[in-house]
């Protein structure tokens, strides 16, 4: 047992990565595994020695193939998707499998400046000995270039545009210029960048076209079927509820299914039976939001409704998740209630509760 709260991917799956090392195919310089072994690691399967490899990503194989093939060329990879589509998860496992190190990570925020992306200075050294390589403070990007490893940049679009553009030289010339020392640090083979970004957020910094051109983009989709999503959500809800000491009432699956049905129908713009087309609200209605809604409902149920979870407890959070734009989205929801939910007997409670909450 370890007292570390969360182990990195390469630590958790060390044995699988070890087993996959045996794959004998050609591997790009600087890669620990062959591209095919990386795919097996992500999608699950059998290692050459016969050991089972658990799937890390459940979804379309071709997306993972595109991602791995991108990293095998010298193009950078941009993973996009709404919250809760496993972007960071995929990026961590790609780094763990390809470089054996998923910790070269820059968490991008509006406050991240160039010194956190390129390099900073150790001012004590700088004052004592003048500018020298020793006085440089290496960022994860710089270390990745030196070591020939993958650098992960999370929530890339939250970086200011000026800071984003410092990446152009790195991605196209594969060097990091240090004008203060009159030198440029060349990247070793095996270096590449995996960026993740949310494609539905507003108020973030779109990539400049010069930068966009240097990325191949893979969009990770939301779960394809209702059952798949119900599975993911109910697992996460139970985990979160346990962590928060919230009791999970019986029959919670039914409520999860109901909430997800509403979310999925509005998100996809069609009813599950694909008979009625609907308008979609401006929000993302991601799996992550469905989880948030349900945990909110559980909390409400536990503290104010004697542990009973039903439409009444969930309606307010559902409206909160659906109606992001008070005028437009409200009309969308109203229309959905009147043209779809009203006619479904099983949803009469939701129809009433959502109408009240509106």
């Amino acid at each position, binding site marked *: 047992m370890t007292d570390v709260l969360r182990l990195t991917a390469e630590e958790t799956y060390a044995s699988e990565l070890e087993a996959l090392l045996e794959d004998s195919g050609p591997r790009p310089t600087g890669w620990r595994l062959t591209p095919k072994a990386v795919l097996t690691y992500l999608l699950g399967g059998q290692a050459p020695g016969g050991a089972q490899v658990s799937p890390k990503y459940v979804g379309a194989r*071709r997306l993972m*193939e595109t991602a*791995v093939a991108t990293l095998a*060329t010298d193009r950078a990879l941009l993973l996009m998707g709404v919250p809760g589509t496993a972007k960071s998860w995929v990026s961590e496992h790609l780094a763990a499998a390809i470089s054996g190190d998923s910790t070269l990570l820059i968490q991008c925020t509006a406050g991240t400046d160039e010194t956190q992306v390129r390099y900073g200075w150790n001012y004590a050294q700088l004052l004592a000995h003048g500018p020298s390589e020793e006085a440089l403070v290496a960022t994860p990007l710089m270390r990745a270039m030196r070591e020939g490893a993958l650098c992960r940049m999370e929530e890339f679009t939250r970086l200011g545009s000026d800071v984003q553009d410092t990446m152009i030289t790195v991605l196209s010339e594969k060097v990091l210029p240090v004008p203060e020392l009159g030198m440029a640090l060349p990247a070793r083979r095996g270096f590449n960048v995996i960026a993740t970004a949310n494609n539905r957020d507003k108020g973030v910094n779109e990539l400049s076209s010069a930068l966009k051109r240097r990325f*191949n983009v*893979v969009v990770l989709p939301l779960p394809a079927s209702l059952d798949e999503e119900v599975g993911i959500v109910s697992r996460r809800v139970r985990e979160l509820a346990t962590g928060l000491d919230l009791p999970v009432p019986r029959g919670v699956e039914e409520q999860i299914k109901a909430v997800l049905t509403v979310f999925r129908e509005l998100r996809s713009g069609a009813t599950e039976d694909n008979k*009625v087309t609907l308008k979609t609200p401006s929000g993302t209605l991601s799996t992550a939001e469905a989880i948030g809604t349900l945990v909110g409902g559980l909390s409400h149920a536990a503290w104010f409704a004697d542990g009973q979870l039903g439409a009444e407890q969930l309606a307010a959070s559902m409206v909160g998740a659906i109606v992001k734009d008070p005028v437009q989205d409200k*009309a969308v929801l109203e229309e959905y209630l009147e043209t779809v939910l009203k006619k479904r007997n099983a949803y009469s409670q939701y129809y009433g509760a959502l109408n009240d909450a509106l």
Partner: protein
Amino acid sequence: MTVHYFPIRHHGPGSAASLVGALDELRPAAVLIEGPADAGELLPALASDQMKPPIALLCYKKDDPSLAAFWPFAEYSPEYQAALWALRNGAQAKFIDLPSAAAIGHDAEEAGRDEAGDDNEDGDDDGEPPGADQAGPETDGASGGRDAGRPLDPIGRLAEAAGYEDGESWWCDLLDQNPAPGPVFGAVAEAMGELRTDVELDPFEAKREAHMRLRVAEAARVADGPVAVVCGAWHVPALAAKVPAAADRKTLAGLPRVKSAVTWAPWAEARLASGTGYGAGVRAPGWNLHVWRTWGREESNAIWLTRIARLLRERGHDISPASLIEAERLALALAALRDRPRAGFEELREASVACLFGGDDLLWRLLEKELLLGDQVGEVPPDTEAAPLVKDVRRIQREVRLKPEAMERELALDLRSESGRKRSLLLHRLGALEVPWGELLDAGRSRGTFRENWRLRWEPEFTVALVERVVWGSDLEGAASAYLTHQMGRAGSLDALAQAVGDAVAAELSEAWTQGLRLLEAKAALTSDVGQLLAAVAPLAATVRYGQARQVDTEPLRALAERLAVEAALGLRHAARGLDDAAAGSLAAGLRGADQGLRLLEAGPETMAVWFAALEELVDDSAAAAFAAGCAGQLLYTAERVTPAQAVALLERRLSPGTEVAWAARFLEGFFTSQAARLIYDTPLRVAVDQWLRGISAEDFLGHLPLFRRVLSELDSMERKRLFEAVVRGSGPARLAGAVVLPADVWAAHLRAVAPLLAGAQEGGPDE
């Protein structure tokens, strides 16, 4: 003489290219092709300069063209290339499959299938999910469609064995995209032999193969050189097998026979796609054409990517050549990762999505159709025998005794009689094909009645138009349905679509109208323009009513119309705000139209409740456009949702001094537009209006005079006189006193003011 078998894939450009190479090498004396034996005479026409693929061999039952089978050929179809090779090299070209009559007869026998067999679902290249319309692959697929009816997918099994997820890709890699010519045909035949071992053969399949075997043996006997047999890969092991001729003849006994005719017809590239219901179709005709045209060229990937880039640039996306280079590199990396010899269709697709489309799958799907389906339509020489569609139209013309005449004449039809209905159907269906033989004279009025008045005039170019429409089907009903469905997919606005659905009902084209309904539903849901929603309610309602004279179930339309009204009602509040005069006018017109439509439909109480609630809200909304609010008030009053007392209260409130005069005047106009006669009969309303009019300042009154005039303009002089009388003396003693006495005072004052002026003018005049 030796017989060489060439197992090909229908419409496989790779097969075609390898085949041409192999034929050049072999130089056979006879080329036998899988195709209806009785169409052999038509083969030489393929060499004509005026024959431009895609074309199809069209075979139909003489007395019922809706029973038809077709054998389409694209430029890259191995069968077509084989025939061309034979014609150009002086070899004998022959079709060896069962005669077309047997194929049609077989289809006719399959109970319940022949109805759906009119190969006309297609043409709709719009959002129909692939595989959704599987009706009639038998009739549809002739040469290869039959292959689809087999108990298993032989290609899929082979591909599975090779570790491919998708049979198509495997076949592509093996044949189409492996330009090295080699013993690939032998390998495929062998693999097919393995596959066929544990498959029970359909009796009809067995007959086809027996027939082909006999023909091959016959050709081998008489030919003075090698014989090449070009047929679907599946059949090769059976054709090569040694079976006594007597056994084959026995198998062939009892073939279904019908009287049939065969001809060439132009075909559309898009209809080759398997998504449009053609059994042996290919997934992407556009891609196949690309593979054929760039066969053996190194830059073929670059050409494909450039085509994508061009399409994207046309739509305003900036795609740099550098991105194309990156896309090709990624495609190559993907192919390597998948152990494929070359980057194929899928690799190029995924690479372009990642590099050119910014990962956006949706954008790809938008472009996909244009890229993959293609829009080419073939041509056949003018001296080709008349197309079955033309014949079918002639047959119906004879049947309903309606002669095509160039002289214009009028025709009145009673839809209650069988002959009237049939004639009307003929004219409506021709109309749906945009062959306007008849013009419906009172289109607007006749809805809902049993009488139609037409003006007929036949133009020679109608026949030409019909030949062009053969692509859509071989009989009138099928072609009209397919063509109308196609047009619906292109309709821009909701009401245009509603109109097309109405046309489909009038022509009793149930398939087209089911499809139209689906499109209408989808479009309605995505429309947030309340004006469009309202505008669509009225034509739908008219169709529902008109449908009563037709044998079409219009019940779903009623539900849709009600849903549209509900959607419009929910959005009304926002739609009525911030409008200028013109927009408010059209919204009010929409409201009136929709309201009338709902009454026509006798819409359910729930719908009406939502509708009236929205109108009530609109009337009370001071931020709404006054004209629309007034119109809502009028509709509520007409529907007796508002009592006379409430209406008066409403008018008083909306016309009270607190309201801006301009707004109030518009409200008034909205309330009384097309209902001005109410002012004559409805005393309380008139009093309310009168009081308001008297309360406003002279300046305001003059300012809005044109508007008041507009309201009253629809009254004729008689009505105006009665209104005047009603105002002047209709309303109690107090008003009477005022009305009569006041003018006298005014006249006195007037005279007093005018007299000095007149005098002054007279004095001043001469001076000037």
